[in-house]
């Protein structure tokens, strides 16, 4: 039997959800027996591959790049999981939403900077008007809230998905 393909992705988040993923401890070995991790911050691959079985996405959708990547992930993945509060609710990433983008960038990179006061424009993706949860951009199949989500919730969800079942997360909810 060929192994399943798992991809992970880090949009506008702090990488805490990925830390929690690493915190699966020995469950990681169980996961590794059944699946390969083919994309993500833990892997070298440059482009999101085709034919992914489970994609775990951390972070809110905050920039045009996030939006494009998320749409690619959706097209190329069987199951898309929103991993953590930023992906599920917008969380801390969305706290900027009440401030117009231009004002926000100027406050940080001009008024807030001691030197080189300029809003960066080269090689950085443009910010969307508001940062939001994944499901406001694409269809999401499963939500694992938590900041970060508990390793046992992630482990349970991933192992269930690899068995072809849809995990019932109702008893594992934790926001914050």
């Amino acid at each position, binding site marked *: 039997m060929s192994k399943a393909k798992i991809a992970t992705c880090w949009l506008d988040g702090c990488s805490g959800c990925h830390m929690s993923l690493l915190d699966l401890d020995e469950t990681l070995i169980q996961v590794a027996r059944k699946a390969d991790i083919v994309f993500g911050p833990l892997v070298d691959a440059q482009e999101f591959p085709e034919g992914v079985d489970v994609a775990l996405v951390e972070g809110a959708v905050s920039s045009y790049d996030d939006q494009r990547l998320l749409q690619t992930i959706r097209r190329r993945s069987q199951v898309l999981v*929103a991993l953590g*509060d930023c992906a*599920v*609710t*917008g*969380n*801390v990433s*969305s*706290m900027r*939403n*009440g401030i117009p983008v231009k004002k926000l960038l100027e406050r940080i990179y001009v008024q807030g900077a001691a030197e080189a006061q300029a809003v960066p424009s080269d090689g950085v993706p443009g910010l969307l008007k*508001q940062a*939001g*949860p994944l*499901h*406001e951009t694409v269809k*999401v199949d499963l*939500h*694992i*809230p938590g*900041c970060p989500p508990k390793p046992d919730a992630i482990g349970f969800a991933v192992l269930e998905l690899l068995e072809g079942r849809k995990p019932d*997360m*109702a*008893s594992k*909810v*934790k*926001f*914050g």
Partner: protein
Amino acid sequence: MAHQISIRIDGKLVKVSAGSSILDAALAAGKDIPALCHMKGLSAVGACRLCVVELAGVGRLLPACTTPAADGMSVTTVSQKLTKYRRMILEMLFAERNHVCSVCVSNNHCELQALAARLGVTNVRFAYSYPKLSADTSHPRFVLDHNRCILCTRCVRVCAELEGAHVWDVMSRGTGSRLVCDMNQPWGASKGCTSCGKCVQACPTGALAEKGWCVEEMAKQPARVSRLAVIRGGGQ
């Protein structure tokens, strides 16, 4: 002694005194109906609608805290339909303001957050409104953060009915509704506030907090305020 009536709660026959609400009767029957705005000892206002129950022969759902129990009633407090609506209510509360649990002073001590976990709300299906809201830090000891307020009015009632100061009220309508201090003044300017802190302890979320606490540090004591209110003989 008040005249006794019998009602059925989830099939179980319960005797309660006339004038009790369905919520009181359910409590007496050992049922824990989800509730946010209700606080024993204060008047019931039916603000949050989480306590909705099904009543045999009645087509719509009714809030248990404001519906009086009547002789012969048959009430259902747990069903798929109720869970569906209770989840929707929680989702609407989350979508209406900025509830960022991870940086909230009451993270892990919040009744709204705890109910989401209890009812299995894994995400909010309604579009978030991300309103631009302020925090009032003018009081020397306390803070009001509108981002976390669910307009349950527990603070309004505890201040008016128990402390007797009536500092709080709600102004405007719909999603524009806001908790206001006196005639919409900064809390610190209130002449009526005795700084007793009852509103802070009664608030189910991180909307009212003591100053000086960091994320996750503001645990509240609503049960103590509630006991005091009951001793003073407040409404149900």
